């Protein structure tokens, strides 16, 4: 392999995506072998990894600009092939994924630098960086996957790293309990992505973007009947709703704030929550083929935007307020996607991710900042939300306050409408089984102690 061959756009794309995977393997193997590198070495490895990714990405972009190419594909062949089912092993970037890949590399690198001081001497320092590298690889895999099947791989890795970082402070039961809840939401919604990808495969014979869609993004089309497009669009929307914390699945967002601030910033401010929006942008030709699916996307987006802003306004801690502000903005992004405003949605994602990361990283010193601003304005910081007072009567404001304070009653509704009946059903079957079995033969009731 010559140096020149390393500088082809294909090689540079592979370096960009897989550098963090290599760093993850290095750190994880070292730990398994019983060696915990010092903080300085871990931080340097992270800096080097994300610098290499960024430099490779920039050179690739320059090369693309020079040749006028709008996409780069690296890799060919199939990672898995059984009969008609194939998972191609190929990564690619086009006009949609390029901004998001750049965003991911820059923001994960920034968070890696920030976390070095934030988590200094924390017992989980090493674990955080292992998971951060795995997350970076997963996010880049989602944004560069050339097929929906490969995207599922990155998507599920994001889920795993996300819940493990929510439970980062594992010695407390709160984060552990919340990580279980978040995992449940993620997995429930992922069923939509798996079944959606299957239907797409069934309808078009492939899940590779270049074979499913005709043309280049954003002017792509798809040959699907209206009913099938609606079904696939709604299933992909379900997956996006889970990842992007849209109504009614937004309840996991404040629970996810149990993790350390750097992970909250990169997951729930910047990259992870936007993966759902990316999925819908990628599948936009399918939404365009189904007015029903587009309408549902708009409806879910607008409801989430309204819900997010209401809850954020009554939240009593900074990170929850920021989380629900993200839900609100993501709702608007989804509405833009449903309306077909692709470029606006991409710009909104980039802007929102950058601003939100900054806000999350500054959240621990929010009170200090506020005092500074208060002093600078001479003690005359104006209150926000005056339009509510102008437009709504006191009773409506009180009702909205209660609604916002209980987070739209969504958690309660999901618990009473879904979780509790399922548990009751399981308990009743268990009781019935024990009643039907002859006395003395029924197992169960044994404790863990022999």
């Amino acid at each position, binding site marked *: 392999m010559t140096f020149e061959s390393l500088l082809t756009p294909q090689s540079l794309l592979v370096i960009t995506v897989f550098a963090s995977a290599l760093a993850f393997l290095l750190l994880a193997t070292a730990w*398994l072998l019983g060696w915990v590198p010092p903080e300085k070495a871990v931080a340097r490895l992270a800096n080097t990894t994300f610098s290499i990714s960024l430099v490779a990405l920039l050179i690739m972009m320059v090369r693309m600009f020079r040749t006028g190419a709008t996409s780069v594909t690296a890799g060919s062949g*199939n*990672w*898995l*092939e*059984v*009969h*008609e*089912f194939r*998972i191609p092993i190929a990564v690619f970037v086009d006009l949609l994924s390029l901004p998001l890949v750049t965003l991911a590399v820059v923001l994960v690198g920034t968070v890696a630098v920030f976390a070095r001081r934030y988590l200094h001497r924390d017992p989980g320092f090493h674990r955080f960086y292992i998971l951060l590298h795995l997350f970076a690889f997963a996010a880049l895999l989602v944004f560069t996957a050339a097929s929906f*099947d490969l995207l*599922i*791989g990155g998507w*599920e*890795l994001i889920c*795993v790293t996300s*819940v*493990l970082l929510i*439970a980062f402070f*594992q*010695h*407390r*039961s709160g*984060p*552990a*309990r919340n*990580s*279980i809840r978040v*995992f449940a939401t993620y*997995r*429930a919604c*992922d*069923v939509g992505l*798996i*079944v959606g990808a*299957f*239907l797409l*495969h*069934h309808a078009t014979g492939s899940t590779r973007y270049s074979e499913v869609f005709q043309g280049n993004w954003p002017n792509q089309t798809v040959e699907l009947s209206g*009913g*099938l497009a609606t079904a696939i669009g709604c299933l992909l929307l379900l997956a996006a709703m889970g990842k992007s914390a849209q109504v009614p699945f937004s309840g996991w967002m404040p629970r996810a704030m149990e993790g350390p601030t750097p992970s909250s910033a990169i997951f729930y401010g910047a990259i992870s929550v936007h993966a759902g929006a990316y999925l819908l942008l990628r599948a936009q030709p399918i939404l365009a083929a189904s007015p029903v699916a587009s309408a549902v996307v708009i409806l879910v987006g607008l409801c989430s935007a309204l819900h997010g802003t209401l809850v954020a306004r009554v939240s009593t801690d900074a990170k929850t307020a920021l989380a629900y502000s993200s839900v609100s903005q993501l709702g608007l992004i989804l509405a833009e996607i449903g309306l077909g405003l692709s470029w606006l949605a991409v710009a909104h994602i980039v802007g929102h991710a950058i601003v939100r990361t900054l806000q999350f990283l500054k959240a621990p010193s929010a009170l200090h900042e506020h005092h500074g601003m208060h002093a600078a304005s001479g003690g005359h910081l104006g209150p926000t939300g005056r339009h509510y007072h102008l437009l709504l009567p006191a009773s409506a404001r009180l009702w909205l306050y209660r609604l916002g304070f209980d987070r739209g009653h969504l958690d309660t509704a999901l618990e009473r409408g879904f979780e509790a009946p*399922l*548990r009751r*059903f*399981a*308990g009743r*079957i*268990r009781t019935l*089984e024990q009643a039907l*079995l002859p006395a*003395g*033969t*029924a*197992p*169960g009731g*044994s*404790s*863990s*102690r*022999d």
Partner: protein
Amino acid sequence: MISVSIILPLLAAAFALRSTRIAQARNVTLAALAATLALSAWTLTEVLRGTGGFLPDSALRAWLAADNLSAVLMVLFPALALVTVAAAPQRDTDRHFLAITLAVVSATLTTYAARNNFLMLAAWTTALLPCILGSGRRGWPTLSRCTLGASCVALAVAFAVGGSGVGLVALVLAAILRTGLFPAHRGVAATLGGSGLLPSALVMNSFPGLYLLARMVVPQLAAEAPHLLPWLGVLALLSCLLMAILALAEKTVEGLLASVFVSQACALFAGLTTRTPEGITGALLQWLVLAICSTVMLSVYRALHARTDGDIAGSGFNGFAAAAPRFAVLFALAALALAGLPGTLGFSGEDLLMHGALVAHGWFGVVLPVAIALNAWHVYRLFAVLFMGEPRIAPVNLRDALPRERLSLFAALAILIWLGLVPGHAVQLRDPAVRLILGSEPAVTSSLP
């Protein structure tokens, strides 16, 4: 060579029972299992090298043989037994445990390699005898004894009657009872409990019900009553979902583990009945995943159980990660591989399995992704219950994984990771078995719109 690999564990079992020094018995057991594994690996190599993919035993040609379907399992099972014995806590490692393990290995290898019905029935029954006849803490609950004993009777009836009527029904019943489909789910799940956990887990992990299904039931049903296969698949899918839902009511770690394992076994059952290359390949790959992951998870659990003298809370948090981070990582890797973690064979296996179920059953196949998602949540919940939260036992009083535990359990998981990164190898390895199960029947076409 097949007969030697079957007799060797039996001889070692006899030695272990008579031995007065437990360390010596353990070393002999490990050596016998390693030798059996080497012989089985040699058999597999010969099967893969042979043109017909069929290798009769050189001494007992009429009785024993291996083909691709059985040869891979004949390598897997001694490997699992080796990992189990190597990682077993000292508390569990007594002469009876070693002898039972070796006897189960011998009987299971015979089940896989049997060329005639009588030998298969004898091996099928022998593998269950130690746990069915065992008393006290080594025995199974009555329900398990009845369920698995009934599977022996059903198999005996099937082989005695033969043909396509009652014989076929009895054959299907034997597979259902041994795998744990509804209504046998509770009886099979109840086997995993008490201090006979490790031998019971080995007995369950041999999956002879699935083997019977792949070897005899699917080909016979496909030839004689093809319309019944989808219904068998539907029963398996519903059983898979039922166990996943019932796991919500489990209050003990063993109960939750057993429910998840039986649910996943039902998923494999459903995959084998799809008559699609994707579904059957997925089931055969996931078979390896389930066997390895359940072995690792139960070994870790048993090691923690021994260290804490059974003081493990089934609900609430135990916080073992503070004292045993390597056990936590091993358990998490196994649990997440079972849940379909990308980068492990579980991802490819589950993807193919779900694809097969959706192709074969149309919209009803959605039951499988839902059940698998529930199971994934259960195993993560289990990981959190065991390893997260405030430590219930002071970290200084709990030892992390010993080198022998670390090495054996990680070696098992390394295979899953390696095959997960290059799943083409695993698919290629199982391809002749897939063709064997599919026979000359055409693949099912999707019933979706």
